[in-house]
């Protein structure tokens, strides 16, 4: 039980640490990092590598944005197996629907509540 949390901490922390080093060494901003991470997640999952990270780290691998890419790839595989070519189009977004749906709904509601402020 404790080990499970430890690995989630280590894997999740390591993924964030890599992103931080990339941000400090390059001029990439947060949005670009998120895009890179999601695509990296898709590529690593497609190659079958990310699966190991999920087995080991649990939420440490699924909570970072790379895990979002992993969700899409797994959904695509299931959908293609079941429905063929249609699954190529439906699989990814079907699997991501919970995440995107909640992000849009909660994002909208809390944007209405939140107040603009200067960031600096």
């Amino acid at each position, binding site marked *: 039980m404790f080990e499970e949390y430890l690995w989630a901490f280590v894997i999740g922390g390591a993924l*964030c640490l890599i992103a931080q080093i990339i941000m400090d060494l390059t001029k990439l901003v947060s949005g670009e990092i998120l*895009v890179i991470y999601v695509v990296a997640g898709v590529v690593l999952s497609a190659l079958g590598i990310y699966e190991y990270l999920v087995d080991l780290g649990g939420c440490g691998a699924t909570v970072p*944005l790379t895990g979002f890419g992993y969700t899409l790839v797994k959904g695509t595989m299931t959908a*293609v197996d079941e429905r*063929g070519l249609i699954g*190529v189009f439906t699989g990814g977004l079907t699997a*991501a629907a919970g995440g995107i749906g909640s992000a849009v709904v909660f994002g909208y509601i*809390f944007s209405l509540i939140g107040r603009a402020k200067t960031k600096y």
Partner: protein
Amino acid sequence: MAKNERIKSEEVFREDYERISKKNKAKPEYFKNAVMAFLVGGTICTLGQLIKNIIIGWGTPEQDAALITTIVLVFLGSSLTAFGIYDMIGRHAGAGSIVPITGFANSIVSCAVDFKTEGPVFGLGAKMFTIAGPVIVYATVSSWIFGLIYYLWGVIF
């Protein structure tokens, strides 16, 4: 004559300014930033694991539990952003608060809130997706490419 002197002194001043500002320019504190990103990112993921285990403990199947965990984290990310708490964490955490799914929710609310005054459609509605939009686009397209290869692979072999 007097004018020339003043121009010259301005040039000297500018050179001094550039020299001093170059010398004192803050370098990113690589080590501190990396440690903070690791600790905060790790904590958020551990929190996710805790939520997931609690939900599984209630008798929910694992796949549903993972989805509910995502939804709870998105809720936490967007609500904490609206109340200004997430930005306080983010100031010190850097990538540790950006990369987890809570950061994805944070990007939606923080972009939307800043442009709310531009109206409900092109302000809030559009700016929500300043960062989330590209993420969804590249995620969808890359997984579509993977799906096509996976499908063709299955047809041919």
